[in-house]
């Protein structure tokens, strides 16, 4: 059965239509369906880093996986961008739709705990090097009391990284996997991962290669790349945790967002 709860993740790319997402959330709220909204904000991070003169780097793992280099200066920008800009913008948009929304990060009431990645490997000039000061982490737990209390009031938690690491300082975590972990922890009925691309792509450079039904297997799918790999991983984690309905949907259009949020059985 499940709780009737929907967890929605809207991406950090500029393309995802915040207005469509908020309209969809508002509709669920009007129907008295509980919702948690999880968000990233990579476009805001990039913009703010530029204005603050903080260079953004990447880590290229030996297997080719590219991730954001989160040195302490970047973590500060990430926190400013998510908590101080992307989240207030979403709260304003939700307020316009009459949704009582509450902005949260993993630092609130122990919500998101993570293990800091204390030794990352990156390839520089063909050499593999260990990076020890990165402030990115892997989610280890979701504390549910605050989320339950807000949902009981009919409010919509609006949640983003950072999370709290064992050393008492923040770490960035992947927002898709936050959404999956929250859906699992709250026994959600549905997880919707909105992207700036049309559904699950086999080739992210070719939107025509959309696969209508993606079978979540037990290994990484080499035909799925880029940010979509993370979404597939997050989707698998949620499915394995018992979330019955996991959707990866195009967040760029009002109707695809509405479809993805609609018709919960």
């Amino acid at each position, binding site marked *: 059965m499940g709780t009737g709860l929907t967890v929605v993740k809207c991406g*950090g790319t500029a393309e995802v239509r915040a207005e469509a997402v908020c309209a969809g959330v508002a509709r669920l709220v009007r129907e008295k369906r509980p919702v948690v909204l999880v968000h*990233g904000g*990579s476009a805001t991070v990039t913009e703010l880093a530029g204005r603050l003169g903080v260079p953004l780097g990447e*880590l290229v*793992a*030996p297997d080719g*996986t*590219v*991730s*954001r280099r989160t040195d302490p200066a970047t973590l500060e920008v990430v926190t400013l961008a998510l908590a101080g800009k992307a989240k207030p913008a979403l709260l304003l948009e939700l307020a316009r739709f009459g949704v009582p929304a509450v902005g949260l990060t993993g630092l609130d009431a122990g919500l998101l705990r993570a293990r800091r*990645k*204390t*030794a*990352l*490997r990156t390839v520089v000039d063909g*050499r*593999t*090097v*260990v*990076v*020890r000061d990165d402030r*990115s982490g*892997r989610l280890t737990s979701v504390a549910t009391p605050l989320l339950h209390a807000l949902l009981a009031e009919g409010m919509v938690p609006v949640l983003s990284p950072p999370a709290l690491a064992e050393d008492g300082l923040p770490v*960035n975590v*992947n*927002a898709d*996997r936050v959404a999956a972990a929250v859906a699992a922890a709250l026994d959600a009925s549905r997880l919707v991962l909105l992207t700036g691309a049309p559904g699950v792509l086999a080739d992210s450079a070719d939107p025509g290669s959309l696969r209508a039904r993606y079978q979540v297997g037990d290994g990484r799918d080499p035909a799925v790349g880029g*940010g979509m*790999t*993370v979404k597939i*991983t997050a989707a698998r984690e949620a499915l394995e945790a018992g979330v019955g309905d996991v959707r990866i949907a195009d967040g760029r259009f009002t109707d695809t967002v509405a479809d993805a949020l609609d018709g919960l059985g």
Partner: protein
Amino acid sequence: MPTAETTVEACPECEGRVGVESEVRAGEIVECPECAAELEVVGVSPLMLALAPEADEDWGE
């Protein structure tokens, strides 16, 4: 045999000889040619090697 540009240090795992180029940087991962252990260059002058930390999965944002 190591060339003139190579420093040799004992592998902390098998005590075998590990040759490292002089332009090696701190943090770099090298492999022991004898036991195939992954070693981290924790110091360059003098050269110091330690067992490399486990690779930490990373998925980006």
